[in-house]
């Protein structure tokens, strides 16, 4: 299910994530929160070129550095 438009993949470091929810505020296009406040990542975390900057911002604004933007899947 790889998207040719994909420029990166968002992954959560689950033990590091404390459910602060900043990522969902920065990038609601991809990230919503479950009933306990932990991120739900849509589309397997695929990030398109249009959302790349917001995805980077979501990564850098996580207070626990629990969100990572990995290289695209082939």
């Amino acid at each position, binding site marked *: 299910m790889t998207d040719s438009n994909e420029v990166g993949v968002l992954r959560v*470091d*689950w033990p590091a994530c404390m459910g602060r929810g900043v990522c969902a505020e920065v990038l609601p296009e991809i990230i919503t929160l479950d009933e*306990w406040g*932990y991120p*739900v990542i849509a589309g397997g975390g695929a990030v398109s070129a249009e959302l790349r900057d917001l995805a980077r911002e979501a990564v850098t604004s996580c207070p626990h550095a629990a969100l*990572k933007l990995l290289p695209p899947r082939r």
Partner: protein
Amino acid sequence: MVGMSHIGAIPSADQVEIRAGARLLASAAYPGSGSELATHRRTWPDPRIGGPSGRLSADVLVEQARAIGLAGRGGAGFPFATKLAAAASSARLLRRPVVVVNAAEGEPASAKDFALALTAPHLVLDGAAVAAYALRCTEIHIVMPRERPAVRDAFELAVAQRREAGERLSWQLTETGPGFVAGQARAVIEALSGRPGLPVTAWQPEAMSGLKGRPTLLSNAETWAQVGALAGLGVDGYRQLGTPREPGTTLLSLSASDDRVEVVEVAYGTPWADVLGGDARRPALVGGYHGTWAAAGALSSLAVSRADMRDAGLTLGAGVVVVPAPDECPVAVTAAVTAYLAGESAGRCGPCFNGLPALAAEVGALARCNTGASYSRIAELAGIVTGRGACAHPDGTARLVRSMVTVFDDEVAAHLGGVCRVAESSSRPPSTAGARDD
């Protein structure tokens, strides 16, 4: 629930019955023989010398493991050849590989690694030694479960014998656990790194970057015993048992409701009816607490085969089969296992820490025929926890619950309507009613 106290309990040494087998458990027929290096060497060649193909290079071992389709026996069934090839190609002068024998059997219903430690520890260690020689490394770790002290005693003795016999490998023994998730690969590497032995996020496969960033060839104890058998017998010898598509044997841990676990070795292709007898017609939990339910009668037409099981929507996992007693409701068993698994969350990943207790509460309500239980809530929670943790503990728990809902749809519907038909049909005289705990 009747007699469900065994759910989640690690069997003590005297609750495990080890049946002698054709290959890995052959020495179980002569107690103590597999634990004695000299006796073991009468059957199995010294890895320094090798079997029919001599001492194996990494390339040849990869080729041979691929030829017999060796799948990891820790539960996930990952191809051993792929792991070994990755470790070999990641090896550099400054990134010397490490070999890890994972005997940290955290699954309560499993006792196969325990059985190997007690009856054939040297075959397990032979496999690890073969890989170390192939990868030109000397560091081998053995990770053992704290809640099964007999495993440590057995490996300590075996390693002492090998050192005395002049084997120049650096065997290092570490205990980990207790707990269900302590045997997870990353948790084991954490424990070896001196940190709490709990799962962490893996950004790269262990074979590329594991212990201290070094290529780490970590496999289950039975996988290593299979490697030892392969090196000792050669590909043709190994193929003498099993089927052309799935050569060799596999270990199974069978538990009925009497708190005992029986460990058997069977050749792939053996009908379940031969393994379980009449129990093959009963509903069974296959693949352990992270496994899937087989409906009544499903196993009687199937063989012990990873491929056949997969085609039938089942998973052999680490070879655990639990057959509930006729008076045990599978929904209630699932609830008891789910509650146990929720309690075994390492508590580090939010969706698992919050989601598994919620899921267990919902399945528990269903088992008690609480009409407030909701089918859609169970499905929702199973979905929420899946794929959202450092390890597959939440995924495995969700798999178990989903399979209960699918396989026992009639029973689930009856429970939602307030009736447990198993409890009704096995309702007992008032004198024993006190034994019921719900």
